[in-house]
């Protein structure tokens, strides 16, 4: 049973891996934006560090750390949502959903693919950060894994929300696959502390796991140690949001099977 489940998950992952293996432009696209972002923000950070001295160096580190870690959430969310859209674009959903593949196995496969996309997309950016700006994000220590894990989980639940909207509203909602997480950037306090935000907006920021991750990251980069409180908040909020997104996905998947959207989606 578990073996068969694993094979089905692998089957769908293999389909995406085969697609990437056959197309270097697709692989290039994965790394293009993270690398470009890193270059722009890296030079900006270098400029601040040169002008402001020691405080500028810390700010530059926070800026680069923010760029790299936010890309984790962005690429995870896009990877998962675009993996689903690939099935719509190739008119393959009809075959996939009449196979014994369970909906949760589909999501598991897309999670696997999104993790692969993040690893391939961010590796050149991490290397460049180290080579060009002598910025080693791994210097944050093992806690970095907890930051990354939280941002990946956030990418999953946002993507599940996007897929739910696609199931509900069809391909008209597919633009959200690229844009929705960018909309959360101002509230995620990626480049500045939550305290900078207007008081009315701060509760929104604090309801997002990402804001707690970046508060924790800045504390770690500034040598303030591990912000366990922020990490606990990020993890707890992620659990809540993920549970809500899974419930929404299950609900919309069933609604699509009732309305016939599963057959006509993408048309």
């Amino acid at each position: 049973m578990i073996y068969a489940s694993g094979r089905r998950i692998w089957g769908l992952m293999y389909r995406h891996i085969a697609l990437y293996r056959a197309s270097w432009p697709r692989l290039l696209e994965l790394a293009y934006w993270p690398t470009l972002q890193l270059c722009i923000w890296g030079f900006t950070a270098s400029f601040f560090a040169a002008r402001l001295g020691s405080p500028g160096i810390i700010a530059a580190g926070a800026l680069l750390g923010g760029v790299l870690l936010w890309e984790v959430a962005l690429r995870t969310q896009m990877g998962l949502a675009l993996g689903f859209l690939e099935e719509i674009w190739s008119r393959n959903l009809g075959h996939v959903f009449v196979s014994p593949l369970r909906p949760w196995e589909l999501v598991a496969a897309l999670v696997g693919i999104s993790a692969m996309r993040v690893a391939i997309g961010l590796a050149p950016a991490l290397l460049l950060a180290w080579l060009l700006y002598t910025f080693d994000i791994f210097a944050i220590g093992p806690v970095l894994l907890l930051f990354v894990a939280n941002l990946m989980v956030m990418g999953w639940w946002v993507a599940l929300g996007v897929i739910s909207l696609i199931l509900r509203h069809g391909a008209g909602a597919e633009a959200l696959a690229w844009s929705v997480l960018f909309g959360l950037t101002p509230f995620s306090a990626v480049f500045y502390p939550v305290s900078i935000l207007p008081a009315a907006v701060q509760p929104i920021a604090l309801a997002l796991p990402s804001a707690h991750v970046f508060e924790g990251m800045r504390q770690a980069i500034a040598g303030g140690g591990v912000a366990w409180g922020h990490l606990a908040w990020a993890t707890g909020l992620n659990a809540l949001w993920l549970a809500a997104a899974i419930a929404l996905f299950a609900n919309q998947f069933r609604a699509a099977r009732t309305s016939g959207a599963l057959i006509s989606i993408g048309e």
Partner: protein
Amino acid sequence: MDVITVTGLTKRYDATLAVDGIGFSVPEGATIGLLGGNGAGKTTTIAMLLGLLIPTAGSIRILGHDMARDRFSALAKMNFSSPYVALPSRLTVEQNLRVYCHLYDVAKPSRRIAELADELNLHDLLGRPAGQLSAGQKTRVALAKSLINRPRVLLLDEPTASLDPDTGDLVRSWLERYRAESGCTILLASHNMGEVERLCSDVLVMKQGRIVDRGSPHELLERHGRHDLEEVFLDIARNRTATAEALV
């Protein structure tokens, strides 16, 4: 033994009744045709049989499994082919078949793909992207995909649509042979009356969501006083009879 049992199957979309309380059963090893004009409810019926669509009312049992509660157990032993559902176009034929070997938990994928390539003459196509194949080649590949798990129940939605007569005939011959050798049960929705007459032991004729006639092709021809199923189809679609037409 009945492999498919459908009782009171209904699908309603708001004010539209797409399928209206139909019931039928399909014995093991039979090939049953589902005939009807556009909008008659054939594709909706097939979608409900496949679990893609939740019925408004009624029940479906396939291979003893209740599709409302246990559809995945049935789906593992079924398969489906339709020219309206594609395979990823940038993947090669072999990669596509390999994906479905995994999805259907087929043992020894390479061997199964080689078997199907032998049977459907696919060897020259295995390394080619699915999107670069002709309509006839795509149909053969879609058939290979639909047989990847050696299904006990095969649902085919217009399997020879858009094929030239030669390729269509090859596909029909192959389906006849496959059913005879494997004992597979086939439900075939088609607009091609010759195909239905040739392949099907029984035919269900649908109109406006209901089954309005059923029987073997021979029985239908006799009942309607016609020489071919196309005339029977037109009689039912246009509410006419052979006798009335003769008087005119």
